[in-house]
């Protein structure tokens, strides 16, 4: 009886941990790595706020924007406070992304501008954009559910 219970408990824990929602998005990992740094700040929009924007701002958004919001679960924007040490930030972010080859894969690369993604089975669940804008380091980190088509819509400017 004890043996059965032990095996059961063990398997249950494994299965549960496999299906548990415990993933961290890239920004969290990056910020952890950087430590309590005065170099960057991070703005977060969580799932509940996204949902709120999708409903209460629906009238101010274009159809495309509304459609796009459907795919987004969260957004984090990590920006450098100054224009110094920006190179190091790019370097750190990139090496963290490339370290974990099984996890993040490169979608696009324009010189310093890079787009990485994370997939779960066939769905893209995370997008990480590294881009220098006006001399500042920017990391825009989306989580959500994307496929090829919705991703295309996200990253191309429609006129």
């Amino acid at each position, binding site marked *: 009886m004890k043996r059965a219970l032990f095996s059961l408990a063990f398997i249950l824990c494994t299965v549960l941990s496999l299906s548990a929602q415990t993933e*961290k998005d890239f920004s969290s990992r990056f910020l952890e790595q950087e430590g309590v740094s005065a170099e960057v700040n991070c703005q977060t929009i969580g799932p509940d706020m996204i949902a709120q924007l999708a409903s209460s701002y629906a009238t101010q958004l274009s159809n495309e924007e509304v459609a796009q919001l459907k795919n987004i679960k969260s957004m984090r924007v990590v920006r450098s406070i100054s224009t110094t040490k920006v190179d190091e930030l790019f370097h750190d972010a990139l090496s963290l992304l490339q370290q974990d080859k099984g996890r993040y894969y490169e979608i696009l690369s324009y010189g310093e501008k890079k787009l990485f993604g994370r997939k779960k089975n066939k769905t893209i669940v995370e997008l990480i954009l590294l881009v220098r804008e006006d001399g500042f380091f920017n990391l825009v980190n989306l989580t959500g559910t994307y496929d090829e088509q919705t991703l295309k819509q996200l990253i191309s400017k429609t006129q």
Partner: protein
Amino acid sequence: MDYKYIEQLLTRYFEAETSIEEEQILRAFFRQDNLPENLCHFAPLFATLDEEATCTLPDSFDDRVLQRISETAQQVVRAERPTLLNVIRPWLQAAAAVVIVVLTGFGAQRAFDRSDNAAWDYNPASFQNSYDNPQQAYKVLENGLELFRRTAQADSVMAPLESKTLQK
């Protein structure tokens, strides 16, 4: 009669210094009749001890307890017959239980993965809004999305997207 020895024993008795044998001697002494006056008032103390020692359970007790024991004994005997099946049985049961749980788990996983939403495996609680005001949040969202929209403006080599080329 010389009761000095008894008196000595008695003093030591009340100091808890006596051995079990010495205490037996005292008990035996106080069971006698015709005790000396200076000692006879201790008699009831020892007599009570004697009496308490004779206190026993009724006979029905044995039957009751043996009944309970035999019930558990039968279970033990059954389990102790060392056939191969009996030895393997608990492991078989454990294995069966494990298989059921694993299959259920996988089945559930499969069902989940079919829906895109469940593929999103992040902890919602880990996203703490920086702004409670939707207006501010919206600004941040817009800026972020704008950066994304400009992503595909090629000014250098582009890695293929899912082995299909990106078309504008």
